[in-house]
């Protein structure tokens, strides 16, 4: 019994149950398949998180975001005063997280590539693009640069999904994707 010392003192020489051996084999093969899948997806898959990241001073990031906003703002969102920015396809675009806002609102074109720079100027936040469901962690002092290609037109919410204090649930941004 499992609560007493093994009945055979030399337990490591006991024979294996045949089915146990088969199962270990199945598990090992499956383990290697799952390990290989992650590598293969980097080659054939279209959804891989970028490995491009830099240390950045939050003030520098805020200044770059502001420069993009100044250059490409096309309108303001309703009466919220939040700028809607329509940068050219293929360009570097910035999304700044802070307590408790995503800034600015981006307007992108469907099936065009953009280099999205993500960073926070205060605490950690979570970039959760809905309803497509892409979730990326956002850190202060680190800038992640990822290439995005929106594959559907419409209005997308940017939810904050890293708890960031009492206003966390009010932190909601938006990305428009136009044809």
């Amino acid at each position: 019994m499992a609560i007493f010392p093994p009945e055979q003192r030399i337990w490591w020489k006991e024979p294996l149950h045949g089915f146990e051996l088969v199962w270990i084999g199945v598990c090992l093969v499956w383990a290697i398949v799952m390990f290989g899948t992650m590598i293969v997806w980097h080659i054939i898959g279209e959804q891989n998180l970028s490995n491009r990241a830099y240390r950045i001073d939050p003030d520098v990031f805020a200044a770059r975001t502001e420069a993009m906003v100044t250059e490409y703002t096309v309108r303001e969102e309703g009466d919220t005063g939040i700028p809607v920015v329509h940068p050219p396809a293929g360009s570097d675009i910035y999304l700044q997280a802070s307590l408790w806002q995503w800034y600015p609102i981006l307007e992108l074109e469907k099936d065009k590539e953009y280099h999205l720079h993500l960073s926070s100027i205060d605490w950690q936040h979570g970039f959760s693009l809905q309803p497509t469901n892409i979730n990326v962690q956002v850190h202060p002092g680190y800038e992640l640069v990822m290439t995005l290609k929106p594959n559907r037109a419409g209005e997308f919410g940017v939810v904050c999904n890293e708890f960031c204090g009492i206003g966390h649930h009010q932190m909601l941004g938006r990305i428009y994707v136009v044809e």
Partner: protein
Amino acid sequence: MADATLFRTCPDTGLPVHLPAERLIKANAVAGVLALALGGFQGLLVALTRWPDVSLLPADWFYLILTGHGLNVLLFWIIFFEIAILYFASAILLRSRLWAPKLGWVGFGLMVVGALMANYAVFQGDSSVMFTSYVPMRAHPLFYLGIILFAVGALIGCAVFFGTLVVAKDEKTYEGSIPLVTFGALTAAIIAVFTIASGAIILIPTLMWSLGLIGDIDPILYKVIWWAMGHSSQQINVAAHVAVWYCIAAMLLGAKPLSEKVSRMAFLLYILFLQLASAHHLLVEPGISSNWKIFNTSYALYLAVVGSMIHGLSVPGAIEAAQRRRGFTRGAFEWLRKAPWGNPAFAGMFTSLVYFGFLGGISGVVMGAEQLNLIMHNTIYVPGHFHATVVAGTTLAFMAITYLVVPLIWRREIMFPGLARWQPYIFGLGAAGISVFMMGAGTLGVSRRHWDINFTDAALSFSYPDTAFLMMALNGLSGVLAAVGGLMFIVIVVSSILFGKKRGADAAQTNPIIGVGGGEAVASYGGEGTLKLPGTMILVGIFFIAFFLYYWVNWKYLSEVWPLS
């Protein structure tokens, strides 16, 4: 040498019981159950707040209670109970005296003080930083200090356990190797040392930072080391509750592992690879390379996962073998149908095994694939996963063994046996519901740790699909069900300990706890006489198919989101 006056002989098992060890087991188990009662109640408040039509608590209280919930159940309940298991698996199962019981009390005292201090900090309202306390969000220094003291106390508990192993070996209280259950507990204790050391490395500087003594702490560095504690501590739970599964199966049915060497190898795989576990939480962080993520998140080619899959065969296989020896040989499943389903210890153990494997295990591996994490990170899928492992798995297993601990250690009969019979099913169903519905809502993108998924106070608007709201409502209902099951457990255990009928010396015959042994060899040289286990083969076959399908379905979901590179 051991002082014979400090021992009693257990009428049920014949084991000599070291009384100082017994007192420490009781104290730690009681502290654990109190933490479970508080943390479980906080969990109910959280579930009712996240039920969109109920939305019970205001935002500040929600975040406060959620922080306390994580601490009390994930840390305090489970670790207090695990310390009790360590003392049981060493002193009692090895028929030994406990090494340095006074030191054990010092550890216990530190754990109590730490738990109270952390709770005080949380209830003060300036430490609603969640269980993870990611910097640069700052809690009151007492929050970090409380966790550190608790961890030091737990470390002392591990030291007492290791010391007892040495004493037992030295005084030759057993022959040959330590029992498998003790081996599992040893695995848990070794992992605990690594876990607590990681916690100290990161929380001590964080405490100094919160006191203003250190400038700042890198948020990614914090996460790498914090999760070496945060995730590894869950591996303590896995090792401990797998040991509990083997223990209950052995006590009730006389189950013997199919092969000592395979089961022990599987525990060893946990020790070798779990320190890589911190990667699971860092799959979508900037500044960490894909190579690092892939190797580490797979625990080096999923070898620790293989360990769990081996236990997934070995535990039901041992039960089937024992039952077949007893004569339940008809068809593939007579052994399972005729199992003691009315005994809450068995019911809790077996349902815990099923929920842990099917819900917790599969979802954990899926979520831990580097790219799949993109569609799950920080959604409520994550708490869905770990409620399957820690609530439906660990907590249910610990509840199950409590039904053996009360009669054996407290020498009291379980009160309200009719209620006890249903308790594991009700609690288990609630916990499984919580897991499934949170995972469902998470697949639809709902955020975890979020007070208002309607975004009523936000400047902009966004709506999750209606199904997500339905899932959150069902999660709330399941939370109520789990709370009912949890309350039943607390009522049964507390009243049994206080008012239960004393278990007399003849109770071992009239109302036996320990089942008859079925412990002959399961396999033999040359394969002749090797028992066939068709039921277990079918069960693990179903498990593998479920795992296989669910894994690929999620890659399909991933392939539909915006291309990114």
